[in-house]
């Protein structure tokens, strides 16, 4: 595997504000989401259900939300929540 500490090279003209702030990136595989709503209890400021099954989520939470987002991620019965943590060292 490549060294995770080697930074990406090449131009990236669009600095990502969520990364600059050490924030998170979140997406939910909504094909797999079954609306169990466990994330909505674990991190109510970042996941909400609209109607019976439409999950709305914050795709760019700040670093301060790290613990809540992690609780939401692990509480999902079908593991549909994907999170990148800027603090994890991933390029």
């Amino acid at each position, binding site marked *: *595997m*490549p*060294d*995770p500490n*080697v930074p*990406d*090279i*090449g*131009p*990236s*003209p*669009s600095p*990502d*504000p*969520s*990364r600059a702030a050490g924030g*998170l*990136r*979140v*997406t939910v*595989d*909504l*094909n*797999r*989401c*079954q*609306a169990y709503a466990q994330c909505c209890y674990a991190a109510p400021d970042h996941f909400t259900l*609209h*109607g*019976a*099954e*439409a999950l*709305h989520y*914050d*795709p*760019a939470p700040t670093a301060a939300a790290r613990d809540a987002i992690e609780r939401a991620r692990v509480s999902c019965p079908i593991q549909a929540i*994907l*999170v*990148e943590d800027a603090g994890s*060292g*991933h*390029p």
Partner: protein
Amino acid sequence: MTCDHLVIVGASLAGLRGAEAARQAGFAGRLTLIGDEPHRPYDRPPLSKQVLTGSVAPAATALPNLVPLAAEWHLGSAAAALDRGERVVTLQDGRRIAYDRLLIATGARPRPWPDAAQGRLAGVHTLRGREDAAALRASLAEKPARVLVIGGGFIGCEVAAACRDLGLPVTLVETGPTVLAGVLGTYLGAVVGALHEARGVDLVFDAKVEALEDDGTGRVVRARLADGRAIETDCVVVALGAVRNTEWLTGSGLAFDEGGVDCDPEGYVVDTEGRPDKAIAAAGDVARFPHPLYDGRRVALEHWGHAAAQGAHAARLLTGHGAGPYDEVPAFWSSQGGVTIKSVGLTEGADSLVIAQGDPKTGRFLALYGRAGRCIAAVSFDSVRWLPAYAEMVAVRAPFPPIRGGVDQGRLSEMAPGLAQRDET
């Protein structure tokens, strides 16, 4: 020849998941991603929903990167040409990038309004990328007097729903007899239409917008229908489907058109003689491939989960970490007006439909589509917990209708789905 340098053209979901899958599989060579937009990969589904209503910022949907990529990025310049003899991709800005293996994931773009000058009028939008969403969001935030959505596909329906979420007057014009007639058929299309009508969307069916008219200063003020009717509007969203980004393959010898680049069952692209090029695969919206579940019918799917799965499949294939045909069962979702629609399989050519669970009158139900006595697709409306069981039936092409007179279930009545019948020639 081994793969020392994997080049991925297209830096959206399929390209990113491809890059991640190559690394996860142990690919340790050079990895290069090329994107026409100046952005790192971002997620598109929120752009037609929460971004339009203002609850998510257009720039906030960057996709999580799940494994270290150690990649070289060339962003902001589209691929312009492919030389398969030299194994070189040339970018619009003149950069030349040599590859050992190439993953084509250039996606699609909105089908433009047919009259280019009308399409450029201020207040006329299409929706695909982050900038499109930001521009449309800005227009909606100015509280237009009436939004006109042209086209009743998923994007058109989601935009109309977002307008009602914002309390904006909106008219949706569709050439067919219902919304979503092409994907769901007219039976369920009418169910979705009723949902939007109840939320205050003005629906105009069997009608065609002939011209967009401006006020003399280049700002749209009116749409003229083919039957002479006029709709006063200061914000127009053209939602007429997508065309694949394949023009850059001109001269490459590959088989392609605006419907996609042709692939063999594994995902390798084929040339105009039908011969696969084992150095190049395609994935996502741009890839047209024979789907084994549908008798090898060639499809190019614009689905989120498909882009992710096929991107990963193609990258493993190219780096020698996988083989075999790509046979993921198609699936998508849409949420509009608080209702979540989820689909598994492909409805195209269905000749029968049953409501297998629930009741459309209550808004929560599951419809199963059949063709020639086999289950080919299942669609749930706010009933996703039923979907996996029916997805299994679709995956094995179980007999249709599924149950006759089961004691735990009412009798199933077969109905016409209202889908165009497939041309068998």
